[in-house]
């Protein structure tokens, strides 16, 4: 498989053509809401992302009930945001923060992937972006949605404490 084919894996092309979570959705009553607009200034790609977070209760931490977003950009940014939406929905905020860190590590791996198989497995389809990490100019495309997610969670108050 060429470097180009490693980057544009079928799962990425599929998500780019049919992205998940597109279209901003109202946050459920009683839930925490956070929204973030992120721009990639070099290419004008942008995403507006909203999180719906079930607040912490009875000793359980906050949980991401859902993610919705609008945006436009290249296939990598669109697919990455789509894959991330599926990956994090229903997971605890603490777990989402761990996945965010692992995905950043993957993007820093220069195409080699991670030594930690368990961590990579946790990323699911997001491991398909390993090929992107060979192209320094495209890494921020893959990270655009993740940056919006992290900022949305911070704005929702779910990261406090």
């Amino acid at each position, binding site marked *: 498989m*060429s*470097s*180009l084919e490693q*980057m*544009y894996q079928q799962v990425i*092309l599929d998500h780019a*053509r049919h992205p998940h979570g597109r279209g901003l959705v109202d946050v459920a009553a009683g839930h925490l809401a956070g929204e973030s607009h992120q721009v990639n200034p*070099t*290419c*004008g*790609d*942008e995403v507006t992302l909203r999180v719906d977070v079930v607040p912490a209760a009875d000793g359980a931490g906050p949980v991401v009930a859902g993610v919705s977003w609008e945006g*436009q*950009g*290249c*296939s*990598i940014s669109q697919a990455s945001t789509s894959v991330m939406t599926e990956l994090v929905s229903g997971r605890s905020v603490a777990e989402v923060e761990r996945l965010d860190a692992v995905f950043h590590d993957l993007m820093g791996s220069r195409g080699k992937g991670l030594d930690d198989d368990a961590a990579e497995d946790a990323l699911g389809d997001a491991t398909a972006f390993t090929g992107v990490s060979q*192209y320094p100019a*495209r890494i921020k*495309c893959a990270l655009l949605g993740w940056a919006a997610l992290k900022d949305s969670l911070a704005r929702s108050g779910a990261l406090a404490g």
Partner: protein
Amino acid sequence: MTTTDTVRPAGAPGPAVDAVDWAAVRADFPLLERTVRGGRPLVYLDSAATSQKPNVVLEAEVEFYETRNAAVHRGAHQLAEEATEAFEDARAAVAAFVGADTDEIVWTPGATSALNLVAYALGNATAGRGGAAAERFVLRPGDEIVVTEAEHHANLVPWQELCARTGAVLRWFGVTDDGRPDLSAIDDVITDRTRVVAFGHVSNVTGAVAPVAELVAAARRVGALTVLDACQSVPHLPVDLHGLGVDFAAFSAHKMLGPTGVGALYGRRELLAAMPPVTTGGSMVEVVTMEATTYAPPPQRFEAGTQMVAQAVGMGVAAQWLGELGMANVAAHERALAAELVKIADIPGVRIVGPADTADRLAVVSFVVDGVHAHDVGQVLDDKGIAVRVGHHCAQPLHRRFGVAATARASASVYTTVEEVVAFREALAGVRAFFGVE
């Protein structure tokens, strides 16, 4: 080089087009011999971003450092004399190349700095610096500065900032559907309130050549200053700044086969003489006391601090080299490349942003591919060794005008070949299939 070694000003008749050995010209650019992405020959179609450098420019910089390096305009030793001579000879070469007098050329770190220099000088005049001589530069609330919607950010944002500091109002010409400044209401845009008309000679996105004469005439009728962003014209066309009649012009070396880190501001002699300084410090003064300072005449007044001498020498050599090639020849060579580039409009799903024909346009062509983002287009081309620019090319308002966030752009220079453009077209034709959008 296949031509004589005399310095020929741009626009002067050079050798006939068929007398230039373009393959030999290309062979002067060592970088173009390298391969990329797993051994593929490099097809460099990003010259509008920055050009590659011929051996003569590279050697001139090395030669300066090896034999003549010293600070200029100070020190009485032999090296300082030789460095100063090289620096000033380079200024003369650049001036001759663009049809200016030598003392009308100010070295700057680049075109962006040159444009900011003018904007900040006007701001300083408005703040009362420069005395009565600078009165002509003073802006008052309600005065207007006119640009176009096609400007590079470097010829837009400095004027926005100047307006914010002075109370002047920014106005602009819109852009026609084929990417040219829309001058249909020119007398409603350039009025008695207009003090500055700033515009690009050639759009770095659409490649369209602006109607300079019409804009200069309109500005003169109302006594407004004209500022020409000549970054994309000086490397590709015969440019005679005196003939064009503009008041100021900015261009950078790195787009015209010269080094990075140096460019030039052209200003009409009496305007530079009346203009207050912007960056202050060493080398630009006459008498400094603890109370006050008087300033050197131009161009030194605008060249504070230790100068980028080796780069200036390289820019002078680049100008001389292009002048020897003959800018009429360069323009003819690149006109043929433009004709090959615009043929991408025949590829299904490819749409040019800008003029689709070759009239009054240069070999810089931006385009969108239906269903495929510009970044993805660029990546597929890069995989075949073809380097194009993707993004908004520092012209977000123009892209917004056309309803796109990003385009891909292919641009040529003296070393570009028709075969490279053909390879680009063939690769581009396969992009939609790769992403399954056919």
